[in-house]
């Protein structure tokens, strides 16, 4: 080496140059590796964050699915519970279970817990299953004793099939009548004054009876009910109030189907308000002025007014269906105290006022149904029960669903350890993915 170095200096410079090149390349490579490692670290971290975020969202949607599964199970008569922490249901790449606690009064608390990847979510709902009992099964239904005044005549027709007059086809004892579905009922006794005639059943409350005077007639049964009518409280739908709906005298307006909230609904003299169903109108006060018309277009669904304050029915105010529509109109009146109708009023539709005492003055004719705390009437009042009302307003939630969600909220995930251990659900729960059942197979019946 010495000899080579001493005899020829040029190769030594060349070797030195090659060394510099190697160092340079190594330095560049090191820099690149550091950059690559940093880039990979950032990428992996971002990817993990994104994956965790997606897992959380998936778990939330899975919990919603679980809650709905519990509700479907409840509707079907099951307990509402689905699977359990030891045997969750498999669905959509994750697992869930639903715990159900019977709170009494037909209320159930459902708690749905879902795990998807590292995501965890829990939702809770308290729901109520309403019985399918129709609100308007009788033309008159009172909590207190019912007294049918003298000369009162009660029969039935179906507004979905046309007008009452077009359905009158029978005669009995000098009375023309349509159908014999004009039932009356009470949770207490039913008393018939002379000449009171019912083409239908008269059903007193459990342990109560009917009492008759001269020339009274009931075409159907007079047997007492086995269970009292529950007169469920009115659950007013949650609807924001957007002001008043006031029709000036002589004005005309149409309210399309939908859900509305008003402080006052007032139909002025000779004014016409047409409401297209399905519609739900929540208001504090309702007033129908003289000769005002409330037109109901229930071709596509019923029209329901929820009145939380006063209901004022001025003489000659009338509600009626548009051509071809059934008279599917109901007033749900929450207030107590007397609820009166002026003499000679023509009343169409249904009124549910479980806290009110309804008074029918003289000359009134009714096509519909009434359920109230107490019902009294002048002599010779005519009632025609609308059988088409049975199609609507079952004793259900405000939205017509037998299952009503009373409250919905996010809940803490339990057991709490699940929120700490973020490994995949099968490992955390110690279950075999292939052994898990589908949601429907995981229902827990009573």
């Amino acid at each position: 080496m010495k000899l080579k170095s001493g005899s020829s200096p040029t190769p030594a410079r060349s070797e030195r140059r090659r060394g510099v090149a190697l160092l340079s390349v190594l330095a560049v490579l090191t820099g690149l590796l550091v950059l690559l490692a940093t880039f990979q670290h950032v990428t992996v971290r971002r990817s993990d964050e994104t994956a965790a975020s997606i897992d959380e969202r998936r778990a939330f949607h899975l919990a919603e699915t679980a809650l709905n599964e519990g509700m479907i199970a409840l509707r079907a008569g099951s307990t509402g519970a689905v699977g359990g922490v030891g045997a969750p249901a498999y669905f959509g790449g994750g697992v869930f279970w639903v715990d159900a606690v019977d709170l009494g009064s037909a209320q159930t608390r459902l708690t749905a817990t879902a795990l998807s990847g590292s995501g965890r979510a829990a939702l809770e709902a308290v729901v109520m299953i309403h019985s399918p009992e129709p609100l308007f099964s009788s033309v008159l239904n009172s909590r207190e004793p019912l007294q049918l005044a003298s000369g009162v005549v009660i029969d039935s027709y179906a507004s979905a099939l046309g007008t009452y007059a077009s359905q009158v086809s029978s005669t009995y004892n000098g009375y023309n009548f349509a159908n014999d579905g004009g039932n009356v009922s009470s949770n207490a006794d039913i008393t018939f004054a002379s000449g009171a005639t019912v083409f239908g059943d008269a059903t007193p409350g459990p342990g109560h009876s009917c009492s008759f005077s001269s020339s009274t007639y009931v075409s159907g049964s007079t047997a007492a009910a086995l269970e009292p009518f529950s007169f469920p409280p009115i659950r007013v739908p949650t609807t924001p109030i957007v002001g008043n709906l006031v029709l000036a005298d002589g004005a005309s307006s149409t309210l399309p189907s939908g859900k509305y909230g008003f402080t006052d609904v007032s139909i002025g003299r000779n004014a016409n308000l047409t409401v297209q169903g399905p519609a739900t109108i929540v208001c504090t006060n309702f007033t129908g002025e003289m000769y005002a018309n409330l037109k109901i277009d229930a071709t596509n669904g019923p029209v329901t007014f929820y009145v939380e304050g006063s209901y004022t029915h001025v003489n000659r105010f009338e509600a009626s269906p548009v051509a071809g529509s059934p008279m599917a109109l109901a007033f749900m009146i929450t207030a107590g105290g007397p609820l009166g109708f002026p003499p000679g009023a023509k009343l169409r539709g249904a009124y549910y006022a479980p806290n009110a005492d309804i008074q029918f003055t003289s000359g009134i004719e009714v096509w519909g149904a009434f359920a109230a705390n107490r019902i009294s009437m002048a002599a010779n009042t005519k009632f025609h029960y609308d059988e088409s009302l049975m199609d609507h307003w079952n004793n259900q939630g405000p939205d017509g669903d037998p299952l009503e969600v009373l409250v919905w909220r996010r809940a803490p995930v339990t057991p709490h350890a699940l929120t700490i251990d973020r490994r995949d659900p099968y490992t955390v729960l110690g279950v075999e993915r292939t052994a898990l059942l589908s949601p429907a197979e995981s229902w827990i019946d009573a």
Partner: protein
Amino acid sequence: MVKHKHTSGFSLLELLITVSILSVALGLPLMIFRSSERMQNTVTTRSALQASARLALDRIAGQLESSSLGVIPQSVLGPGLWSSTVDFQRAGDWNGASVDWAPAERIELIASAEDPDDGVDNDSDGLIDERVVVWITDVGLSTERRRVLVKDVPETLAGEIAANGVDDNGNGLRDEPGLCFEFSGEQIVIRLSLQGRDSSNARIEHSEVRRVALRN
């Protein structure tokens, strides 16, 4: 000797050609690199804005979904109307007869403390009069608490020009701010825009829309 000297060096022409080739060989990748870096920076800024907007909307939606229209006192309701503030209450437990509602909360768009609404870039971040979204819990109580959900919200939603009475961005709303709530039936439509600047100081805006169904 002369011939030897001549062959051991480079002519001026050779040097010029070499320098030219090197300039092109090194300059072109550098230009491409810088161009892609700028593009990457823009994409990164936009991606960060998108992530922030989605996170903020997740949090806002998460609060609102447990509420009910019945406990949201609103003066502006219906399609085409907007509000930059929403007062609400979340459902607590069911007491057997009714819902126990949690104390009042509010989500509100306000001027940033660092950059008041004066048309000047007070905080020298390249953005003028940016707003912040705050979430206030226990409104009106001694325990009231404010949390900033997201910063750098522009005065108006992306594509909208302030106070000209026109729906510039074609979303059905006029002159809406950078955060706005539109009530549609039992749903609330939330729109949020965020703004930022990339490395070349270009202003970037990103908008997100979220529809929230109120569950109670």
